[in-house]
């Protein structure tokens, strides 16, 4: 290092020639590459999250696009309904169309007799179908006494079955000839001349292993409980507490042993070679179609089995080759759509009476507790009214306030305070605005609950800082020369601002406003607190009607246990996202179209 100070830098150590990559340089380059890779993977993670989110939603939403209808011939029996064409329309509407539809289904499937079976049969049709039929008949009373073809809306479970949500009915190849005869106890003896059921038997046995596995997993969980109670008992401070835990432990041990024993039994059954195997509702369902009707098997062997009639079958069948065999892989106990319902649905489908059509109701109806009847329109209109209120408050107040702060406000402590306050308000959690709305507008001013009026005001207050900040930025971007030019020809400050600065800042202000409104449109939490989460079946017609909004509708539906609501939720999200995308696109368009560089 001594030569550093000399006048001969050529003799000093060099970082190396240009081309030669030293080991140190390679290391430094690798560090750079690593940073780049971290950055790229970060972006990849964000993009993957977005894709996962959107594809979940879109994939789920598909189920809500279509709905299932029965095209059913119904005789409008005046005696049964106790009305005549000359009755008052209101009376007609109140007639028992529900029972009429049920009766016409029962006539179609006379085998359904038990309470459970009848309920399953009635459940094929949505509860909303009778209202539609009633409205239709009330509008044209002359139909009474005639037979009409009417599209009855199917229930949500029927629709899910049609979508394949419970698995597909899987047709098996058959080689033999089928014989079916009725035994004394009413069950059917089924046999084929070939080993047509061998594969099914294998599946039934495999299912037993799965079941045993599941039972063992449950037993494991009980074992956990046993351990936990044991630990608690050991750590217990009082004898009483100890006793309690030991009792719980004993319970858990008992449950565990029962589960394990059950699993053992299942495995033993599965391992027993050959022989008839019972097909219970925990196992796959085996369907036979022959003799003009449907059966399912309750016991199966390679070539034979015991069956049960689901729809009317012409007996006896002898050496018929005109039959088919189907397996439903999901166990009956796991799906809310029974074997009976499957048989009825398939029968109706063969008759060409079931159709899946585009679900217009989803876009025109308001909320309902029944998934097949629920629609998004009520929430869309609710959102519309709420946004009207929000916009008409927040836009003028925000823009005028921003003009004051940017153009007129003297620099003093009060305006500083307002500035700090606006910045802080922008970061207040939205739920706090909900509490504000609850305390001030509902409790203090006594405004109506669940109304777009209150929701709109709360969202307006929440959006206000965003709009003020955006509007100020837009005003700040207008160069001072514009103001000076206006003032220079003798305009007052107010005139300069309103005639020259504001119009130039308007595109920027509008962009900020649209983005703020989009945020307000997607906001949920504060609205929950002011009661917009109520169940509202009417489309609101004004800002003081009870209403719900799109994001709250999403929240409500996501909370319902019915599986069909999952698709509705996703579809509602799609509608919401569509609105947001349109608004954001508009904002981007405005920004691009009117962007001005000074």
């Amino acid at each position: 290092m001594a030569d550093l100070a000399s006048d001969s830098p050529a003799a000093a150590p060099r970082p190396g020639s240009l081309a030669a990559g030293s080991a140190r340089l390679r290391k430094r380059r690798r560090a750079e590459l690593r940073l780049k890779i971290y950055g790229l993977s970060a972006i990849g993670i964000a993009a993957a999250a977005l894709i996962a989110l959107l594809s979940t939603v879109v994939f789920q939403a598909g189920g809500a696009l279509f709905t299932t209808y029965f095209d059913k011939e119904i005789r409008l029996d005046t005696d049964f309904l106790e009305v005549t064409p000359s009755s008052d329309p209101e009376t007609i509407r109140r007639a028992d169309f529900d029972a009429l539809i049920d009766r016409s289904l029962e006539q179609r499937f006379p085998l359904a007799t038990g309470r459970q079976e009848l309920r399953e049969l009635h459940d094929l049709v949505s509860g909303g179908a009778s209202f539609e039929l009633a409205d239709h008949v009330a509008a044209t009373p002359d139909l009474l006494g005639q037979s009409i073809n009417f599209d009855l809306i199917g229930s949500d479970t029927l629709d899910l079955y049609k979508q394949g949500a419970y698995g597909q009915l899987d047709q098996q190849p058959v080689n033999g000839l089928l014989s079916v005869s009725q035994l004394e106890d009413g069950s059917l003896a089924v046999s084929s001349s070939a080993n047509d059921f061998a594969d099914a038997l294998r599946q039934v046995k495999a299912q037993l292993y799965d079941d045993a596995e599941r039972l063992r997993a449950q037993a494991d969980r009980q074992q956990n409980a046993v351990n936990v109670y044991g630990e608690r008992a050991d750590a217990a401070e009082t004898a009483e507490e100890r006793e309690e835990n030991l009792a719980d432990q004993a319970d858990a041990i008992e449950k565990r042993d029962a589960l394990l024993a059950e699993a053992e039994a299942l495995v033993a059954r599965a391992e027993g070679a050959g022989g008839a195997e019972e097909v219970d509702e925990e196992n796959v369902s085996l369907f036979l179609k022959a003799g003009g009707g449907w059966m399912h098997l309750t016991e199966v062997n390679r070539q034979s089995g015991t069956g049960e009639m689901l729809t009317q079958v012409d007996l006896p069948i002898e050496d018929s080759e005109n039959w088919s065999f189907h397996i439903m892989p999901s166990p009956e106990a796991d799906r809310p759509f029974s074997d009976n319902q499957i048989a009825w649905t398939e029968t109706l489908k063969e008759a060409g009476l079931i159709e899946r059509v585009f679900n217009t109701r989803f876009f025109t109806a308001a909320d309902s507790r029944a998934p097949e009847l629920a629609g998004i329109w009520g929430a869309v209109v609710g959102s519309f009214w709420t946004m009207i209120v929000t916009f008409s408050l927040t836009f003028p107040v925000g823009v005028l306030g921003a003009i004051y702060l940017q153009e007129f406000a003297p620099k003093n402590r009060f305006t500083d305070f307002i500035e700090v306050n606006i910045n802080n308000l922008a970061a207040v959690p939205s739920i706090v605005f909900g509490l504000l709305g609850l305390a001030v507008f509902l409790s203090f001013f006594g405004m109506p609950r669940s109304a777009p009026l209150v929701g709109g005001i709360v969202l307006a207050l929440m959006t206000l800082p965003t709009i003020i900040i955006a509007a100020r930025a837009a005003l700040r971007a207008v160069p001072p020369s514009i103001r000076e030019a206006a003032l220079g020809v003798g305009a007052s400050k107010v005139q300069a601002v309103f005639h020259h600065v504001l119009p130039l800042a308007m595109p920027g202000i509008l962009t900020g406003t649209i983005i703020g409104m989009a945020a307000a449109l997607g906001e949920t939490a504060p609205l929950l607190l002011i009661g917009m989460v109520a169940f509202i079946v009417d489309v609101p017609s004004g800002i003081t009607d009870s209403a719900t909004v799109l994001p709250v509708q999403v929240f409500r539906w996501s909370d319902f246990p019915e599986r069909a609501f999952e698709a509705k939720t996703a579809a509602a999200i799609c509608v919401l996202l569509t609105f947001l995308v349109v608004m954001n696109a508009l904002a981007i368009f405005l920004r691009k179209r009117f962007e001005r560089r000074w």
Partner: protein
Amino acid sequence: MNDMRLIERAVDMDDIKISARDVQVYYGDNHAIKDVGVDIEDKTVTAFIGPSGCGKSTFLRCLNRMNDTIDVCRVEGDIHLDGEDINARQVDPVQLRAKVGMVFQKPNPFPKSIYENVAYGPKIHGMAATKAELDEIVETALRRAALWDEAKDRLDTAGTGLSGGQQQRLCIARAVATQPEVLLMDEPCSALDPIATSQVEELIDELRANYCVVIVTHSMQQAARVSQKTAFFHLGNLVEYGETGKIFTNPEDERTESYITGRIG
């Protein structure tokens, strides 16, 4: 600095440090540098002059490939440093910039202490094995930049707290600390007051003993004061290149003369 000195200096023409041929620079569609070719000598101060927007700074940034950092910028042509093509594929700009240091128009010390500012380059290049070595490098660099006496008692204070002239000398110290062979200076005095300017100019003259210095300036007086060779750029072209004394007293090109006499600028 008097004209006598300019004349008495005999420059060895063989000692060429940087040689550029047919350099073209494009900013997007804008052709900013056209067919520039120049040989820059070692141990010499070379000044680039010309009206603003003439491309002199752009060309300077080609010499240590700082233009790489600008997305839309594209450089063509050959630039050789000691006979090596700096735009060759196997050349790492990082390596190049360690050899070709740069000082910018506005002093840009890092928001760190004076010591850390100067030690930054040696540290990243691994030039010092021990703290003592690093201390020595920092001291040498600060001495070369004529800042040692002012800064030695406040090495731990922020570099941004110095005055403008001191900041610029700190930046020069920072550049010198990596022991470059070439120092590029992009209008190093344009943000400084006259006193600081003369200090920096004196420093440049001293640096000539060790380095090949290239300075861009919009001040003809400055060029005349500090440089031995001068290149005049106009609208992206290198109009004239030669001994500073000759350019200022007897320019060959009409445009150079117009600029020198203040008719274009």
